[in-house]
Structure formats: C-alpha cells, structure tokens
C-alpha cells in the first residue's frame, strides 16, 4: 500500500515536472526590449539613486533625465531637459532654458525642480557623490519657471561634464524627506518618477527592473511598450541569456566578441572605453625614484604585441594619458619596444643596487581572464630585463583598502595595474595624478608628487577657452611622457552586442555608462 502511494506520488511529481518542461516559455508581451543594461564596467546593478551613482547612467537615463548630456559619439555636450544653454564669456555663468517637460505623474517640470536637485547634488549629506565636483558652484538661481542660472566662483572646465551626471529630481516628491534620510528612503526603488521616455513600474530584487513607455513623453510616444533591465552576476551569464534569446542586448568582454562576429543574428557595437590603462609606480617606494628605471619599464613592455595578440588589435597604445590626436603634442617619445635600451637604462641607474631581482608586488583590481593574460605577458617581459614583478589580483574593496589607506603599506603595491577615465572630459585624469588628490583627499593612489605635472594640470583645468585648453592638455601629455608618473599602456575598445531584431538602438561603452543621448523612445524591436 505504502509502495503504491509512493509510486503515485512519484508519478505525480514526474508529471508536474514534465508539464513544466514541455510548456512553451511564458510569453512576454511584444514590443519589450530586455537587456543587461547594468552589465560590465559602466553598470551599477542595484543602485537606483542617481545622486549616489558612480556608474549605471545608461540605465538611469532611460527614466531620469539630466539638463545636459553628451551626444551619442561622446564629443560634445548637448541639451536634454535644458532646451538650450549659454555659457558667459568669462565662463562663470551658465544659463539653461528649460524644455517644456512633465514628470511621470503629470506635474510640470520647472526651474524649481532643477534648483532643488542642484541643492541635493551639492550637499554631501544627501549621499551625493557629486558634491566634491560641484564645489565651484557659488549659486543656483531660478529667475523664472523655465530658466536656471548657475554661477561659479571660478571657471571650471569640467562643470558641464559633471552636470551631465546630475539627473533631475522632482521637488514635490522628495522635499518632505530630510536630506540625511534621503539615501535610505525606499522611494528610489519603489516609486521613482523622472521625466524620461520610460517610467518605472517595478523592481524584482536582484532579478530585473521593468519600465513602461511614457506615452506623454515630449519627444513622442516611445516605440517600445516596455524595457527590462535584467541583472546578471557577470558578463558571461548575460552572454548565455543573450544567446538563449532571453535578452536582446548586453555588454560583452572583448575576448568574447569574436564569437559574435559574423553571426547574422547579432550586431557588435564597438566604442572607445575612454579609460587609459597604466602601470602606476608607487612614488613612495624608493625603487622608482630614478626616471631611468621608469623609462626602462616603458621600453621593456611590447605594447604592440600585447594589443595585437590579447586585444585582437582593438586598443591604441598610449604614450601619455591621452590617445586623441588633438591632445597629443608632436615631439613625444613613443617608447617603442626596446629591451636592450631598457637593460642599459637599468644598468645606468644601478638597478642591481636599487632592487635587483627582489619581487615587486603588482596589485590590480582587474580580475578578468584578459587582465590575467595581460599581466602574465607584462611579468614575462619585465623579467627579461631584470625586473621581477609578481601580479596580485584582488577584489575592488581589497584594492581600495590598500591603496586609499592614508598610511599605506608600500610593500603591498609598489606597482599597480589600473585604469582611469581620460575622457570625454580630458580633465578627468586630474584626480589620479594631481598632488592635491593624494589620499585621503582623492584617488592619486600612486602618490605622484610632480610640481611640473600639478602646474600643467591646474593650468589646463582653469583655462576657459576650449581650444587653448587642448593645447594645455598637450602640455600635460608632454610632462607625463617625459616624467612618467605612470607607465601608460593603452586605451582599449569596449563592446556591446545587440540582437539584429532591435532597430534604432543607440549604445556606446561610455565610462560610467554616460549619460549620452541614447534616444530610448526610438528603440524598437522587429519580429
């Protein structure tokens, strides 16, 4: 009897499981685009608060909007919620004429909302990560409903770049929450409202975020009905979902790109990462004091070979922090691979006495297979000239705890393999190289103390005229190329893959995810 019951129970569960398998996939409504929008270095899964966002702007800007954003090629800043804007000749006054926009709840977007948002962004108590970058702002005024005036205490070339990251927030929904409680409020992940082409509908913890078309969008009714942002533990999981047809878009690591090339079902999107990779010399370690040693490191590494074999050619060698033509002066050294010259320089500097073959820790937060291969190659090339580096890859919190420590243990990171944003605003590199940014003040983790470099960076940042500024950044490039605060390596391309069914999709691997004008209202999906 018991056996019979067991047998029936088994049969029943088998039927149940069988039913599950044989059922066709639960249909998702047409006109829905699913993607891994927060996969990869530009994403920030689980963050809903734009004030706290250090990345993830590709997704946030589908439902929130800033006053201004980069164009899709990341070349110039254009108006979004600001229909137009003007900068005074002295570069101290920014006047924005606001577009006629509505919040997702139907209330009008006004200059008071913009002023309110600027107040939150400038106040570190709100949890804003933008406060430090907005410290040049002296006042924000709203003379009428459609005008916002921002006055600076001193010209700052990076103001517009920073403003692209300030997503406008509704005063009527947030003003009742105390500023220091704002980050802890559940509004962000339950009922946020923006002005963008899609509106927030739901978040299923750690699974996905769903947005629905904002039919009243000022730029026209979106072509898609819904956009879904799926969360993935890593890019490989997102690729599996892309191949299985569950999502239509994701960022992919460069070593996976080749598997999509030539496949008609997908389109590969390639773009500049705007991140310069470098070997950062820890300037508190005596072994790097002699510039000849630093030069030897540059000559010893065959960057072209690494780019060709590991990046499949999709990277540009960097002889300073920049690779864009207008920022590179004519007469810089391109440090062509020359191990003999490296050996000679090391000998002249007395490397045998300075360090000899003692192991040098090369710390990095890059843990991808590509980075592991790059470091293995670097290790082998440096070993050939007599520099014995030992790569150590750790997770980001461990890396930060070591390099940002105000009293660092130099032995743990005599050398770092890292990346730093070098554009679209060329001034972005200042934080990693200016002496004023040595921890705890900022992330100059290599503790570069080079007066000539500080002066060049300060001059470029303070220059209001764009074309003169480029010349000043050339000076920065020249100083970097001569003094080598870092051994600069390359700027690699990054990739996204989108299903061929998706039309008018705009994406670029912008640092931090942009924001840039992606026009989500135009995205559509065919059969």
């Amino acid at each position, binding site marked *: 009897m018991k056996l019979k019951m067991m047998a029936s129970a088994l049969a029943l569960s088998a039927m149940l499981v069988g039913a599950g398998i044989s*059922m066709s996939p639960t249909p998702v*409504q047409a006109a829905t685009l699913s993607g891994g929008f927060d996969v990869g270095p530009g994403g920030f899964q689980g963050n809903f608060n734009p004030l706290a966002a250090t990345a993830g702007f590709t997704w946030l800007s589908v439902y929130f909007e800033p006053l201004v954003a980069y164009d899709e090629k990341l070349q110039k800043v254009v108006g979004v919620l600001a229909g137009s804007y003007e900068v005074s000749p002295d570069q101290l006054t920014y006047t924005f004429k606001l577009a006629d926009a509505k919040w997702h709840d139907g209330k009008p977007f006004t200059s008071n909302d913009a002023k309110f948002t600027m107040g939150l962004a400038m106040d570190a108590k709100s949890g804003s990560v933008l406060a430090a970058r907005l410290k040049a702002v002296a006042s924000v005024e709203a003379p009428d409903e459609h005008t916002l005036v921002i006055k600076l205490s001193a010209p700052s070339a990076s103001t517009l770049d920073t403003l692209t990251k300030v997503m406008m927030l509704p005063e009527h929904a947030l003003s009742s929450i105390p500023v220091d409680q704002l980050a802890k*409020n559940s509004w962000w*992940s339950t009922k946020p409202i923006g002005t963008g082409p899609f509106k927030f509908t739901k978040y299923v913890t750690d699974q996905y975020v769903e947005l629905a078309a904002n039919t009243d969008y000022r730029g026209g009714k979106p072509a898609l009905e819904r956009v879904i942002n799926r969360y993935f533990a890593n890019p490989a999981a997102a690729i599996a*979902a892309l191949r299985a047809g569950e999502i239509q878009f994701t960022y992919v690591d460069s070593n996976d790109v080749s598997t999509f090339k030539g496949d008609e079902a997908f389109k590969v999107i390639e773009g500049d990462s705007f991140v310069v990779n470098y070997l950062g010399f820890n300037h508190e370690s005596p072994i790097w004091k002699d510039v000849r040693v630093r030069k030897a490191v540059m000559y010893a590494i065959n960057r072209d070979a690494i780019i060709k074999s590991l990046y499949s050619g999709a990277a540009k060698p960097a002889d300073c922090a920049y690779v864009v033509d207008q920022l590179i002066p004519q007469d810089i050294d391109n440090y062509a691979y020359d191990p003999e010259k490296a050996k000679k320089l090391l000998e002249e500097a007395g490397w045998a006495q300075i360090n000899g073959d003692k192991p040098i820790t090369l710390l990095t*937060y890059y843990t991808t297979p590509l980075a592991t291969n790059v470091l293995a190659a670097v290790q082998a090339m440096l070993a050939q000239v007599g520099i014995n580096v030992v790569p150590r890859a750790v997770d980001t919190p461990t890396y930060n705890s070591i390099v940002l420590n105000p009293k660092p243990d130099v032995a743990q990171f005599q050398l770092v393999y890292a990346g730093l944003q070098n554009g679209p605003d060329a001034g972005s590199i200042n934080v990693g190289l200016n002496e004023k940014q040595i921890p705890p003040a900022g992330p100059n983790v290599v503790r570069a103390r080079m007066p000539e470099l500080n002066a060049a960076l300060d001059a470029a940042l303070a220059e209001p005229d764009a074309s003169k500024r480029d010349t000043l950044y050339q000076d920065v490039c020249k100083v970097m190329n001569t003094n080598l605060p870092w051994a600069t390596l390359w700027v690699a391309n990054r990739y996204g893959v989108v299903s061929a069914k998706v039309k008018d999709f705009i994406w670029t691997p912008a640092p931090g995810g942009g924001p840039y004008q992606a026009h989500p209202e135009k995205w559509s999906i065919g059969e």
Partner: protein
Amino acid sequence: MLQYSLRRLIIGAGMLVALSMLIFLLLRLTPGDPIDAYIDPNIPMAPGQLAQLRSQLGLNKPLPVQYLAWLKQALTGNLGFSIKRQDQPVLSLVLSRIGPTVVLMGSALIIAIVVGIVTGVVSAVRRNSATDVSCSIFALIGISSPAFLSALIGLYVFAVRLKWAPSGGMLTPGAEFSLGDLLQHLVLPAALLSIAQAALIMRYMRSSLLEVLNQDYVRTARAKGVREFWVIAKHALRNALLPVVTLIGSTIGLAIGGAIFIESVFNWPGMGLLLVNAVEARDYPVIMGATLIIGACVIAVNLATDITYALIDPRIKVG
C-alpha cells in the same frame, strides 16, 4: 525526547552565538570595508566624506563594541539595515530569500533522494552488472564534479546550446506568475544541484544495501519463500536506509555550499546569491544576518535528522 530536544536547542543557541562571533571576526579580518566596496577609485570624494560615512555606519568604533551592539540588536530580532541597499532591513531581505532557496534546495533534495536511492538499490541488487558499473561511474563523476563546474557545463549545454531551459532567473521578467514558468526555471538548477548529493546517496545506498543483503534475516526471509521484490522492499531496504538518512541530513550543509554556486550561476534570487553579492559589497549586516539564519537552519536540520533517526529505528534511544 523532549528533554533531549530542549538540551540540543540550548546547545544550538550557544553555537549560533559562537558562529556569529566567528563570522564577525573573519569579516573584520577581510581587507576592505563597505565604504571601500562602494567607492569608485576614479571619483574624488570630498575630504572627510569617507571618514564621515564610516562613522555614520559605526565602523570607527572598537570591534567588541561593534559586536555587542550588533548582538544586542539581533537578540531583539533586529538584524539592522543593509549597507548596500540602504532602504532595506536585513531581516526582510533575508526572509524574502529563504523561499526561493528552500524551493531550489528542496527540489534538488527530492531529485537526489529519488535518483540516489533508486540507482543505489538497482546497483546493489544487480551487483557487478553493466548497470551497476555504469551507475557507479556516473556516481564517481557526480561526486568529483564541483558544483560550479557542473553548473557552468549544464548552463552551456542545456540552456545555451539545446535551449531546453532558461539560462537564469526564477521567473520570466515581465510575465505574470505561473507554476509552469517557475518549474521551467527551476528544473535545470535543481537537477544540477542534485548531482553531487544523488551520487553520494547512491554510493551509500548501494554499500549499505549490499551489507544488509548478506544478513541472516534476509537469508531467512528468502528461505521462507518471500518474493525477492518484497525481500528487498520490506526487509532489506528499511534497515539499509538508516545510514542513508544520516547522510542526507549531514549533506544539507554541503548542499547549501553548492546552492551558493548554483544560485550565482543561474541568478536564482536565494540566500546564496544574496550572500555572494553581500560579500562582494562587504555588506556586513547582511552577511551576519544571512549566515546566522543559515546556521540556524543547519542546526535545526541536524536536530530533525537525529529525531527522524530515532523514529525509523526504535532501538535508538535519545535523551
């Protein structure tokens, strides 16, 4: 029995406190704290802002003070707030993940028990046959395949190549809930999670049944003319199951370890995924809360196993 259970419960509570202390210490020995995990090295923070964030979270206080503050809160049932998801209390975060994990582990356990016992019995009865040898080979492969490896291979073969099952998640995003949809998402991770346990159960079942089949009372039953099916089902199997039940109980802890991998690979929104994300973000309150609850579950399951053991075999007296 009651006295025994009570005593075990008290010991269990003591073990939980010890566990929380150990996890707390291990966490603080791990390099990097929640602030280090949160900041992007490329973004300048205002001087003092990092220190301010740390003091807001109480991370600047001495360790014993921090631990006691946590314990005091925990004893009142308050496990604090997540640091990464600032608006979510740890208790509700963890509780919302127990369901999916129980569904995943429960289904895996059922598959493992059914497959393990059936193949174990078949192998023992048909000892040294081709069936036995192939079952044993599969069991060996199953035992020696780590969960992360079988999960990745399974994902590639069944989800990406054959498209028999979705590649991850618990429900189709944007679709209404349906049992069929849940089962479709469940079947692959549950089957993969069950492999190691099924293999282990099979091996134990086989050797235990072989041992029992040589016992006198089995021979007596056969001599009495009882049909072979009933000899095995009624006389041998019940006795052979004893060590297997113990094994099943003690492998629950192991299964939780496997579930952490499976949940990460398949993006299953359970405790494992929560823990992995929390460790990456150094989200101390979530790690503490989740390990405490997992620890409590393991202790409870072990207690339940001991009690089941006594129920199956009345000769065993507890207390």
